[in-house]
């Protein structure tokens, strides 16, 4: 199938994009990398009257250092994030999770900002962004505001980005020297996570001093495994299974053709244990 007809605009600045968005109102849809939006348009699950392409907006793409923070433009592709030396050094968890997104062709087009705002609970990037305590920079008619990742994901496919607003950048506090691992469970290559666990760990001489863990597809939004994080502090990196047994506490995973909720709860504990062990090992 092909999408239904729409009007196309390709603004070259954030200001022009916001103006186009305001003019389009409810009938507008923002196009980032398009790797989730185009399938939706093709299947006609959505039929916007106007598509606003951010692909030609200057300044939304690229990765830079800003003091204790790494700043990633919303239109930076997955391929750029996964291969960035800055991200690998200071936010290794995001680099590793991004390398697991879909397949190479999708990673060449798909963007961090697009994936985050799409907010598919089975998407791989919400969990690492949440675990790394990122901040989202949102531009709107009234100027710019910043929202913490923990307040950003509000529901299934819903975020704090309001009508007439755009996510412009993701700011990630440096986690230099932290071990990291993203453990993704799928049955078929390049598919959505059934469950995924994003773990980053600060370990010193074989002892974990701090751990941050995000869960993919264990509820309508990405979640932190807070009780596991607390239980891991001070634990030996070689013996994490007990501390990880509470990974599914407080979660509300879906039941679907890939597995029921109990299966996902079990998976979460197993995958968290694996992810933490791998993260602690480097």
């Amino acid at each position, binding site marked *: 199938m092909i999408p239904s007809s*729409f009007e196309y605009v390709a603004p070259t600045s954030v200001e022009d994009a916001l103006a186009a968005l305001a003019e389009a109102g409810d009938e507008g849809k923002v196009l980032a990398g398009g790797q989730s939006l185009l399938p939706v348009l*093709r299947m006609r699950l959505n039929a916007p009257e106007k598509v606003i392409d951010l692909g030609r907006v200057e300044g939304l793409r690229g990765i830079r250092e800003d003091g204790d923070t790494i700043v990633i433009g919303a239109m930076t592709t997955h391929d750029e994030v996964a291969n960035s030396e800055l991200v690998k050094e200071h936010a290794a968890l995001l680099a590793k999770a991004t390398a697991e997104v879909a*397949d190479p*062709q999708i990673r*060449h087009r798909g963007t961090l900002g697009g994936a985050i705002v799409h907010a598919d609970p089975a998407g791989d990037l919400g969990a690492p962004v949440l675990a790394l305590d990122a901040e989202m920079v949102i531009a709107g008619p009234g100027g710019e505001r910043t929202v913490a990742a923990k307040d950003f994901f509000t529901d299934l496919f819903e975020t704090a980005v309001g009508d007439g607003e755009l996510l412009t950048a993701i700011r990630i506090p440096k986690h230099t020297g932290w071990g990291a691992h993203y453990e993704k469970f799928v049955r078929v*290559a390049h598919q959505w996570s059934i469950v995924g666990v994003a773990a980053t760990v600060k370990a010193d001489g074989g002892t974990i001093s701090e751990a941050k863990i995000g869960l993919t597809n264990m509820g309508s939004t990405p979640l932190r495994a807070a009780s596991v994080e607390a239980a891991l502090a001070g634990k030996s990196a070689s013996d994490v299974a007990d501390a990880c047994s509470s990974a599914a506490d407080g979660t509300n995973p879906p039941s679907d053709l890939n597995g029921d909720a109990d299966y996902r709860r079990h998976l979460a504990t197993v995958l968290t244990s694996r992810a933490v062990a791998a993260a602690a090992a480097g």
Partner: protein
Amino acid sequence: MTRITVTVDGAKYSDDVEPRTLLVHYLRETLGKVGTVVGCDTSNCGACTVHLDGRSVKSCNVLAVQVDGHEVTTIEGLATEAGLHPMQESFHEHHALQCGYCTPGMIMQAIDVLNTHPDPTEEQIRLGLEGNLCRCTGYHNIVKAVAAAAKAPGAAAVSSSKVGD
């Protein structure tokens, strides 16, 4: 209609397209480049893979208007008067196809794999082809063909950006 100017397989084209036109349909129906095929129409199978500014993309998942001002290489742009591209040659040598429907996309993605990993491990080849499905399940010979192409004389020239120069 929106006016776009695109370089495809080394030649420049200007056309008026509907914004909803997918790149794969522009290539096939407007330019007649039917070597790039539509497989699944859901962005899963990778049969429609082409290179956009030297990197592989699924052309059913890109709008033609998005490539305005950019450069596209399709399977039809690989061979030269001197002969087949080394990757095409290797697929031929290793019988890396059964029905052949996935082959255009497989070859385009295989070239991208070698651009990323000039001396790939088998795992890197398999992961690199993760987004390309062969429903004949003829994967083993495809992996062999890519590994052999990496070792073939002139393997470093396995780059779509060289095509059409």
